[in-house]
């Protein structure tokens, strides 16, 4: 398992598309922050996280290129032929995909907070006293991001290609956005990770509910994708 994770890290580090997506998320996130004016470090925590869901589309592309392409190029099959269990293959792939997706989604907020804090100061009690709350907020956001990425996982392990692994999560993303802009948005938001992300920024004390929704979604997607992969015929 450790070998598999090491190999996945090596692949990610040598994957140009990952770094392009990372750069794109920083640039896009930066643009979205432009209309916010001068923000202190503390204010930019919430402003940058508010924009993070818009970058979610980039993780759909990442999922297609990172997992879907492994199926399309048949490179994933080598790992199974090398005598690794399908569960380990799935887990290592999932861990690195979730980590990579969170890097794409959270690097820009982190950079933005650091930059604004450096230029305009922290602007709240003190960074030290807020640190615990910010870490909790980021960890919850990471779980919710992972939950949203779960659909990419499921699509990749069902469709085993690039095209559908990109289009299904993108469709799911737009559907979620549509629902969150509808008349019952507030009620629906409580049951959807993307909605919980927005609720979390409005009320950062609601991490419990957000974590619960995130873990349930992530768990369901992972169990379903894992089981499908375990019984898949690989062509």
């Amino acid at each position, binding site marked *: 398992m450790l*070998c*598999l994770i*090491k*190999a996945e890290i*090596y*692949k990610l580090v*040598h*994957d*140009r*598309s990952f770094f392009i997506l990372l750069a794109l998320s920083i640039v896009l996130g930066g643009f979205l922050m432009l209309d916010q004016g001068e923000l202190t470090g503390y204010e930019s925590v919430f402003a940058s996280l508010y924009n993070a869901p818009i970058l979610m589309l980039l993780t759909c592309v990442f999922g297609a290129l990172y997992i879907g392409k492994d199926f399309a*190029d*048949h*490179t994933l*099959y*080598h*790992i*199974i*032929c*090398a*005598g*690794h*269990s399908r569960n380990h293959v799935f887990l290592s792939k999932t861990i690195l995909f979730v980590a990579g997706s969170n890097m794409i989604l959270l690097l820009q907020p982190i950079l933005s907070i650091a930059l604004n804090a450096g230029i305009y100061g922290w602007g709240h009690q003190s960074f030290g006293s807020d640190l615990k709350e910010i870490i909790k907020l980021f960890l919850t956001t990471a779980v919710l991001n992972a939950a949203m990425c779960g659909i990419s996982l499921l699509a990749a392990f069902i469709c085993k290609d690039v095209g559908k692994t990109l289009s299904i999560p993108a469709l799911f993303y737009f559907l979620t956005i549509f629902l969150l802009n509808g008349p019952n948005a507030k009620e629906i938001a409580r049951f959807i990770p993307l909605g919980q992300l927005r609720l979390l920024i409005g009320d950062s004390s609601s991490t419990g509910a957000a974590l619960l929704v995130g873990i349930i979604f992530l768990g369901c997607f992972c169990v379903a994708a894992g089981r499908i992969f375990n*019984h898949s*015929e*690989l*062509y």
Partner: protein
Amino acid sequence: MSDIILTTNNLTKKYNHTLALDNINLNIERGRMYGFIGQNGAGKTTLIRLIVGLSFPTSGELYLFGKTGKQALQEQRKRIGCMVETPALYPNMTAVQNLEVQRIQRGIPDRHVIRETLELVGLDDYLTGRKAVRNFSLGMRQRLGIAIALLHDPELLILDEPINGLDPMGIAEMRILLKRLNAERGTTILISSHILNELYQTVSQYILINQGVLIEELTQSQLNEKCKRHIALQTNHVENALLALENRLHIKDYQVMPDGTIKLYDHLDDMEGISSTLMKEGVLITGMTMAGDTLESYFLHRIGGEKHALSH
């Protein structure tokens, strides 16, 4: 230690209502080179997929190095190197990076294996290059695919169509490499290929498969025996011809085929003598040719597809 490293017992694979493999019973012995022969869709790749764990059997048993069961088979697959159909490569990485991924994945501590393996398959020019694999020719990809299969010095090497895309020089080099691996390292090799003449020069055992059924297993010498040169003789009276050949020319080494053709393995350089003897005995010769099967024609005979092949 057992000499049989791979056994299948009534291995069957069904896809919906299609029977891809029908009760395959097979033994692969250590240190031998096997040629896996069959038409497209005969079940060769399906069997290879079952062996390497990409697919699951519908019924039957598979033993690898004497072990069976999901966990044990998974463990034993670490001793196998394979290339199924096309080489599976990371197109944006270099040859060295592709091998590095496999090295890490397999937990091989020695980095030198990459250099050694690239040298082995004749890709040592790409040790320091930055050329991405997507820019490689088909032949180079094929070599790299084989390098990946060889990286951990496997005991059993399974190659599905390994010489596809190789130029004549590349094919000859590959043949030499496989023979060397077999002779020097004792690697058991299972190759599936459509290029039967090439297979004939490489392997020592043949496994013939047709429509999911294993039709024959034979050694090189058995094949040579079955394909050996002979005079194919057609006459108006088989019994009289045989009497004349036995009594007058003392020919004992012959075979009568179901269509009445007499295959003479003796007196190959005396066609005139045979024809004059038969004429004297009043036997009319309707056909007389020097013949000898190749692996290809033998295979076509066995699967009954000769007519089909000739009609194209």
